[in-house]
Structures are given as structure tokens and as C-alpha cells.
């Protein structure tokens, strides 16, 4: 797959005024959306969040102001061309009921005049990517799919021409809570691979907290009340408007947004599978530690644990000793999830991986300490 990551988007003094209305729908918005991040616009209905999003692909033409996508002025381009390179997902996927799943996904590639083979290959690739078996689903019509499946096809369709930017307008608004949670998880793991720049509109603050790398809380006229990482907003809400939006359990939500990768991890000796056992033993003794992690040479994946006692009189490559790593925690996991995982497993130490690469270790103690700190901070604010 071609690997186009995201690009930066700059909104400068963006204003949308409708004729006959006193107040602008979007009033002088300036913000930077970092490349490869998911930025969630959250706000009450009428706050202009959807309007602001639609200004980016010019479904709504701004009255004044600038939109820079990867430094290029979006208003200088032809609107249709611009949109063909920005993915767009709406509620229930916005699938065309008269086209098959494959035809829906192929729309933009066809407009861009890709050749047939390339389109067919791309459709299969995308369906597989969103977890739908191409042979089963490609020729189905939207009405033959469940809500969650339709939404997945909607995402696949938006990704068809591999656009660097994705706009998502309350995409999971029409599905049940369980499916929604699943779709959110899938979006996050897709994003792990793709690193697109995603602008995501929702009125559900919990969704914003879960999905967003950054959240922009918008009030009337799309005024940015606070634009920060979820943890920051939860810990230090800018004002009562934001506090009202967060709701009651800000501290508990904090557990659900702080990711394992964001806390201070424990460190351990990491060694190559072919390292000499005696040498590893010596190194452990020097550091006065008991455990070392053996990393897969090419992928940096944690594969084995070895301990000092075991290596006492050993010789030869270290991969012949210890036991396999069977529990890992993703750096994307929230503290809440990490806590649960640690309580469930027997292991005292669990390696943390980000995109399968070793990042560090957590213990029950580390996580509990981090949680305590967060609680403290939440209480103060």
C-alpha cells in the first residue's frame, strides 16, 4: 500500500457568514491541525462544528480567511479537485444505496481515472483493511449490510484514493453503543497504521476523549474555547462551559484517556537473542536487576524473559533460556485497560509495545502511582 501519511492543516481567520443572519456561523477561527493527528471538534449543536469542518473541503465556501493544507491554499484549487483528495465520511457512511459496496468504494478512483485492475485491487485491499472479507461483501448492496458494516465501508470509501486528510462528520452517530465502541477501536488501530490527518466532528465528549489526539471544544460561532490534548482538558478545563461538557466524572475519564505510553515507564535491560548468557548475567548483576527482555532482532518485538538466577552458570546464546513473553500491553491502551490487564495476569512486569516495538515495562505499582497522580491533579483543578 502506498503510505501517504497526514499533512498539516492551517485555518487562518476563517469566517462564514450567511446572508440575513446577524452572527457569523463561524467567527474568525484560527487553528493548526498537526499532520497525522486526530483532532476532534466537539461542541453543542449549533456551535458551528460541522460548518467549520465543511469549510475545509469547501462544501461550504468561507466568507473570508485562509485554509492551508500542507501549506497550499485550498481556496486556490478547484473545489471538486480538492475534495477528491480529502476523504469524507458522514453518518451511516453516506453509502449510495443503488451501488454495490465495491462500486461505492471505487467512486473516487474512477473519477481519478485509475485503470480497472488497480481499482479492483484497491477495493479488495480496503475491504480487508476494514475487516470485511472482499469475496463476501464486495458485490453486496448497502441495505444488505449492518449499520456497523456500512460505516466500515464508508471509511474504506473515504480512504480509496489514499487522501492525506480525512473529514468525519459524526460518523458513528447512527449505530448502537457496542458497535460504536468497536468502530472507534478499529478507527484507532487503522490510524496507527495510516497516520492520516483526521478531523472528527462529534457532540459526544466521551467519544472525543477516546478518539482524539487533540480536542477542540467549540462554542457558538465555532469559537475555540479550549484546544488541547484530552488529558489536559480533563485535568484543566478552561472554563465552566468546558467543565459542563466534561460532565461529572472528569477524574474517572482521565483514567480512560491517559495512555500507557504517556506515563513514565520502567526500564529493563534489553538484549539480543544471540547475546552470550554469561554476559547478560554479568550485566544484570552490575545493574542489580533480576530480569532482562530479549528483543527480536529485526522487529524490536519483545520475545523472551530471562532472569538472573537462571543465567547463573549458563553459557551460549541467551535465547536458549527463560520463557516466552505471553502478555504485552499496547502503548495505546488507557491506564484503565492496563490496570485491568495487570490485575488479570500473573506477571509482575509487563512489556509495553507501540506498533509492536518494545517501549518499556509497567508494573502494577507504576500504573497505580500514575493513577494517583492524575486523581490528585483532577482534584486540584
Amino acid at each position, binding site marked *: 500500500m502506498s503510505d501517504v501519511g497526514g499533512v498539516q492543516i492551517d485555518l487562518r481567520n476563517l469566517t462564514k457568514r450567511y446572508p440575513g443572519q446577524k452572527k457569523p456561523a463561524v467567527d474568525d477561527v484560527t487553528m493548526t491541525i498537526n499532520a497525522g493527528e486526530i483532532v476532534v471538534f466537539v461542541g453543542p449543536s449549533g456551535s458551528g462544528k460541522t460548518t467549520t469542518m465543511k469549510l475545509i*473541503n469547501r*462544501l461550504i465556501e468561507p466568507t473570508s480567511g485562509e485554509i492551508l493544507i500542507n501549506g497550499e491554499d485550498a481556496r486556490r484549487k478547484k473545489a*471538486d*479537485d*480538492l*475534495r*477528491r*483528495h*480529502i476523504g*469524507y465520511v*458522514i*453518518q*451511516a457512511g*453516506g*453509502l*449510495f*444505496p*443503488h*451501488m*454495490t459496496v465495491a462500486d461505492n468504494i471505487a*467512486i*473516487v478512483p474512477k*473519477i481519478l481515472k485509475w485503470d480497472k485492475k488497480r481499482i479492483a485491487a484497491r477495493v479488495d485491499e480496503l475491504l480487508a483493511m476494514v475487516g470485511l472479507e472482499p469475496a463476501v461483501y464486495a458485490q453486496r*448492496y*448497502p*441495505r444488505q449490510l449492518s449499520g456497523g458494516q456500512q460505516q466500515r465501508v464508508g471509511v474504506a*470509501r473515504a480512504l480509496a484514493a489514499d487522501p492525506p486528510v480525512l*473529514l468525519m462528520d459524526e460518523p458513528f452517530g447512527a449505530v448502537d453503543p457496542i458497535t460504536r465502541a468497536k468502530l472507534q477501536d478499529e478507527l484507532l488501530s487503522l490510524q496507527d497504521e495510516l497516520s492520516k490527518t483526521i478531523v472528527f466532528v462529534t457532540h459526544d465528549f466521551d467519544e472525543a476523549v477516546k478518539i482524539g489526539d487533540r480536542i477542540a471544544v467549540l462554542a457558538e460561532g465555532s469559537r475555540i474555547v479550549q484546544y488541547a490534548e484530552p488529558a489536559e482538558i480533563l485535568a484543566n478545563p478552561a472554563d465552566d462551559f468546558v467543565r459542563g461538557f466534561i460532565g461529572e466524572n472528569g477524574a474517572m475519564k482521565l483514567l480512560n484517556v491517559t495512555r500507557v505510553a504517556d506515563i513514565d515507564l520502567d526500564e529493563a535491560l534489553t538484549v539480543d537473542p544471540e547475546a552470550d548468557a554469561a554476559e547478560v548475567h554479568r550485566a544484570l548483576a552490575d545493574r542489580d536487576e533480576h530480569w532482562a527482555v530479549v528483543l527480536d532482532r529485526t522487529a524490536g518485538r519483545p520475545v523472551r524473559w530471562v532472569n538472573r538466577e537462571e543465567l547463573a552458570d549458563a553459557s551460549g546464546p541467551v535465547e536458549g533460556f527463560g520463557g516466552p513473553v505471553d502478555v504485552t500491553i499496547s502503548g495505546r491502551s488507557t491506564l484503565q485497560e492496563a490496570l485491568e490487564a495487570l490485575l488479570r495476569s500473573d506477571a509482575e512486569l509487563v512489556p509495553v509495545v507501540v506498533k509492536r516495538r518494545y517501549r518499556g515495562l509497567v508494573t502494577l505499582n507504576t500504573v497505580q502511582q500514575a493513577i494517583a497522580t492524575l486523581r490528585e491533579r483532577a482534584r486540584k483543578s
Partner: protein
Amino acid sequence: MSFWDYVTSRWDLLAFETYQHASMVFQCVLAATIIGLAVAIASYRTPWLANLATGTASVIFTVPSFALFGLMIPLFGLGVVPSVVALTLYALLPIIRNCIVGLAGVDPAMVDAARGMGMNRAMVLARVELPLAWPVILTGIRVSTMLTMGVAAIAAYVSGPGLGDEIFSGLARLGGANALNAALAGTIGIILLALLFDAAYILIGRLTTSRGLRV
């Protein structure tokens, strides 16, 4: 002479009149479809224009067919032209109304999605709006055809073509031999044609409506 004898003895003429009737109705509905679609496409996004188009067509439609044919004579004389003009005007209302209802009834989210993917106005119309509105439009065409079929019988009175000739020749022979046979032949012929066209529309509907739209 029995009805059956009448039909067999005049088979060639009847077949010709039937063909003429069908061809006239088909051409008038085709013309009305082209005009109706054009009017609908030009007006469905502007409510007052759409109302004006539907309103005008419904005034024309309210004018009784016989009067409409009558009004064509001073303009076009007798024959094929006044028949075709009157029938086409008459066929407009169901088509314009259903085209506008169909196009305006397309879920705005569909249009939003299409625009958001970078389709221009023409693409949105051709690939999204018309296919989605098609079942409704086709129903309009079908209703229009049924109405035109019966009205076309009056064309014979202004010396137009078709099975109306049989009915009027029955009228002319009122009380004489074969009056009933002629009137029956014309009337039944037109009803059979209507059935045939209706069946054709069901088939066309099947063939041209996306499987994804069928319930």
C-alpha cells in the same frame, strides 16, 4: 357479423391502427419525458420554480382532453400535429410532478456525500440523484402513458391516427351494422395496448432499477 369475424376480416387495418396508436402514445410520452425531465432538472432546486412548473402542468392537465384537442385545431389544423401536441401537453403533468418529487426527495446526505467526494454538479445528477429518483420518475412515465393511451382515442376526431378511428366509425354507424364491433374493437384494442405497455414498464423497471433500491 360476430366480433371475431369483424376482427379477422379487418385484421390488417386494425393492426395498422394499433401500431399507429402505440407509436403515437410512445412518441408523445417520450417527448413529454424529455421536456418533463428538462423542466424538472432546471427547477427542482428552486421551490418557487418547481411550484410554477407543477402548477402550469396541472392547469394544462385540468383542461379536459376534448377541449385541449379542440383548442389545437385553430392553431394546427386537423391531423397528426394537433394530436401530438395535445397529447404531449397532456402527458406532461405526471412526469414533471414525479421528476420533481423524485429529485427533491433524494436524501440530502447522499448529495452531501457525493459533493464531498469531489463529484461536480453534473456527476451528482447523473450518478446519484437520477438513479435514486428513477423508480419515482418511471412511475410518473407509466401513469402518464396509461392516461395518454385512453385520451389518444380522441385524436381520431381531429383526424389524428390510431384506434380512435374504430370508435368514431362505430359512432358514425350508430344503429347500423358493425357499430358495436367497431367501437368494441377500438376500446378493447386500446385496453390491450395499455396492458402491454404496463407489462413493458414493469419489465423496464426491473431492468433499470438498481438491485440495491428494491425492497
